[in-house]
Every structure is written in structure tokens, then in C-alpha cells.
């Protein structure tokens, strides 16, 4: 399958100091990858590097075939903004605005379809800040879908939401991956959920990246191997 993102011998870090070094990986159409690892191991650094929010200190990242859809952590978004769900979702079309920079009827219709697809049709005109954590996450997913991505990158999409909402979000991602061939890459601490959902994981620790099947790496014996004698407590 076609390569959408290729990372070659890349180092990522801050202030000239590499947190991740020598990373090699490819993200292809249809991949479903989780990024996991201990706190401070470099998960977020790798994720930001793949997204293009961090320039590589060494090596290179090719995204020539990728149309990125990004779902940030909802806690980073300030509730002081008076925005309805449809306002937030329509932001996904802002990069494509032309002329007078008004949204076209087609863009509005696409936003409505994206809202419907994530199951929020009844909440389209509700204030974004009044939604539950899981609903807000789905609204951000709808916004990412409006950009018609072929790679979806999600930062902790299931943290801080109840078990039912976690399941709905992950089921949606599985459906998008299976039906549309959308590549999915998500950072998560919730290893149990990832083991059931992701096909592969990128284990990020001590500045290195290890790729393997989710069911093997995230099984208790796999985690024992990764953590040595002291496996960390599994979240979620």
C-alpha cells in the first residue's frame, strides 16, 4: 500500500537537544497505529514531529502523499470562545477559503455531514463548551474529517472521558479506518483500549522507537519485556 508519511533517520527535540533519535518509520494507507510509552519517553515529541509541528533536528520527514487531519487534546481549547459545534467543525474548511473568504454552500453541507457522521447532528448548534468530553472529542474529529484527510492524527483522544465515550470514539476510528482506508495514528496512555483497537503500536522510550503488533507488545508479557522487571500500571 502507498506510503503517506515516511520518517527517515529523524531526530526530534527542543532547543537543539534530541529527545528522539534515528527514528525510521512509514505510515501507509490503512495503518492503525498507537503511540505508547512511559511518561517523558518522547511520545509527544515524535507525534509533533510526524505532524510537522516540530522540524527534524536531523534526518527527514516526507509527507508528500499525506493530507493530515489533526485532533488535538480538547483541554488545550479555551472555553471562553463563544463557539457552537458547527462553528468549530467548519474551521476544518478555513484553509480552503477563497475570494471573500466565506464558506461555500458545499463546505457548509460537508460540515453538516461530518457532524452527522460523528453522531452530533442534534448538537450542531449547541455551545462547544457545553458538550461532554467525549462529545467535544467527536466534534474535533468531525473538524479533522472536513479537511478530507488520508491520515488522521489524534492526541490522547480518549483521556478524561468515560468508558462508554471512549468506546464510541474508538469504534468511530475503527470504522473510518476499515471503511475509508484512513490511516490512524493516535497517542494514548490507555494500553488496554489500544490493544483491542490498534493493529500496531510505536513504543517510544529512551529516545528510541520500536514498532510491533499491538496484541503482542501490549500483552502483559510484552509489557514485561519492554519495561524489564517493573511494568507500569496500565491506564484506562
Amino acid at each position, binding site marked *: 500500500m502507498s506510503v503517506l508519511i515516511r520518517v527517515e533517520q529523524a531526530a526530534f527535540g527542543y532547543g537543539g537537544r534530541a529527545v528522539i533519535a534515528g527514528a525510521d518509520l512509514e505510515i501507509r494507507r490503512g495503518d492503525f497505529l498507537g503511540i505508547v510509552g512511559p511518561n517523558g519517553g518522547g511520545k509527544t515529541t515524535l507525534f509533533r514531529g510526524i*505532524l*510537522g*509541528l516540530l522540524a527534524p533536528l536531523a534526518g527527514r520527514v516526507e509527507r508528500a502523499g499525506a493530507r*493530515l487531519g*489533526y485532533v*488535538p487534546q480538547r483541554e*488545550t*481549547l*479555551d472555553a*471562553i*470562545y*463563544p*463557539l*457552537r459545534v458547527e*462553528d468549530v467543525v467548519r*474551521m*476544518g474548511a*478555513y*484553509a480552503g*477559503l477563497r475570494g*471573500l*473568504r466565506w464558506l461555500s454552500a458545499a463546505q457548509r453541507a460537508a460540515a453538516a455531514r461530518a457532524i452527522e457522521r460523528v453522531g452530533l447532528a442534534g448538537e450542531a448548534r449547541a*455551545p462547544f463548551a457545553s458538550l461532554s468530553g467525549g462529545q467535544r472529542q467527536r466534534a474535533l474529529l468531525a*473538524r479533522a474529517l472536513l*479537511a478530507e484527510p488520508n491520515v488522521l*492524527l489524534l492526541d490522547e483522544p480518549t483521556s478524561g472521558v468515560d468508558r462508554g465515550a471512549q468506546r464510541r470514539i474508538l469504534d468511530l476510528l475503527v470504522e473510518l479506518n476499515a471503511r475509508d482506508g484512513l490511516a490512524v495514528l493516535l497517542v494514548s496512555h490507555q494500553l488496554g483500549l489500544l490493544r483491542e483497537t490498534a493493529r500496531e503500536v510505536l513504543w517510544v522510550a529512551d529516545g528510541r522507537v520500536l514498532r510491533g503488533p499491538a496484541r503482542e507488545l501490549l500483552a502483559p508479557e510484552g509489557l514485561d519485556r519492554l519495561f524489564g522487571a517493573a511494568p507500569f500500571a496500565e491506564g484506562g
Partner: protein
Amino acid sequence: MLDTSWLERLELFLWPLCAALLAGLVLPAVGVHLLVRRASFHGIVLPQFAAAGVVFAYALLPWWIETIGLGGLTLEGALHDPHAASTFGLAWGAVFTVCGILLLVRAARGSGSEVARAAAGFATASALVLVLGRLSPVGRGPIDALLGGEVLGVGLHEFEVLAAALALSALLLAWFGRDILLASFDRESARVLGLPTGAIEALFQGLVGLAVAAGTLTLGPVLVFGLLVLPPLAARPWVRSMRAFVALSVALGAASALLGEAAALHWDLPLGPSVVLTAAVALVPAPLAARRT
């Protein structure tokens, strides 16, 4: 109360009234974006920098005319030529405002309290206004009038300068409003979507600087920071969308300008503070909205 009819007063003070009304229409729309960025204190600090720039321009004027020249004008001629004085003041007001913006942007990125650094900037700019005012060849009168919001001396040329600057700011805000909103609400997503967030931020700060510098030169810092801060603060609890937020803020700003002008004319009060106090009244019902939601 003034001993003239309303019609005569309107005729006499046409341009100051038009200038305050125009500011009431545009500055709250700019203030909306400052409020959602939690940067309303910029609305207080930046006009003070702009005022320092205008006062600095007056203090600098004798040296400037002697050394560089100002269209062949003498000092006396420049002080009596509204075009020369206001353009020179606007230029320096803009320079100081840009310096204030850079300072605030730096404060936001630096360590420690951003608000404390902004407060330090405000204190410095306020002190500069007073010290430079002492050096001004025009004396304290015009500077006290500027700082106190007594804007009844505004003429056609000052109004034209203000109208051009505010119209440009409003146009940029309307045209690029969506980009400015996304870049502040979710900067990382804006970058991933391919928006040039650095250029958008520079554009926003530029239009704020332009509106603040022109507003302060013409109407004084009191009216400018009052209209940047109060109408959006009063409007926020009542709205559910950015469009409604801007519309209500602008409506409150315009209503404050009209009612404040009427009060100033009727009771012979300083125009700027009258408008600001009227805008402050709009804050009173805000707790009702909070209870409603």
C-alpha cells in the same frame, strides 16, 4: 449645561461626535479578539504606549524640524497645521504601539507573570507620558486634553485620519477574521491545516496597533481602552457564537458612544470619559446572564 441649542452643539462638535461614534463601532470588534485571547489588558497597555508616542512626537518636534525638517514648516507653523501635527503624532504613536506590542508578545513568551510584565509596561508608558509632556513645546494643555479624553477639538482632518485607520483595521478584521480566530483558538490545528500562523498573528497585532495608535491620537487613551474592553466584556455572557459576540459588542459600543455623547453635550462633560462610563453601565446586567445559563 451649555447655553446653546442641541442643533448648534451638534454642528459645533460634529467631528468629535463622529469620531467617537466611529470608535464605538470599530474598537469593540477588535476588543472581542483581545478578550477571547485573554489579552484584554493589551487594551489598557497599548493606548498608554500610543499616548506616550504622541507626546514624544510633540517633545521631539522642535529638534525634528531643526534637524530633519517637516515639509518646510517652522515649529509655529507645524503646531498650527493639523495635518502635519497629527500625521507626525500618528507616526510616533504607531511606533510606540508597535514597541508595546513587541513587549507584550515577549512577555507572553517569557517566564514569570505576563500580567505583571504588562503592568510594568503600563507604568513605564504612563511615566513617559508625564515626563515627555513636560518637554513638549505645546505646553500641558493639549496633552492634558488628550489624556483626559477631552476630544472636542477634533477637526475634519483628525477625523479623516481616524476613519482611514479604523476602516483599514475593520476591513482586515472582517477579511481575515476566520484565520485570526482559528490561529488563536487552536494554533496547532491552524498550522497543520496549512495556515501561515506567524503572518496571521503579525497581521492581527498590526491591525490592533493601527486602531490603537489612531484612536489614541484622536480620542485619547481613556476612550480607546474603554471601548476595547468594556463592550466585549458586557456582551460575552449573552452570546453563543462569535458572530453574535461581535455584533452585540459593536451595538453596545455604538450605543455607548451615542448616549455618552448626548450626556457630554447635555451636562458639558468630557466626551471620552462620558462614553466610557456609559459603556460601563452595560456591565451591570452581566450577572443576570450568568444566572440564566
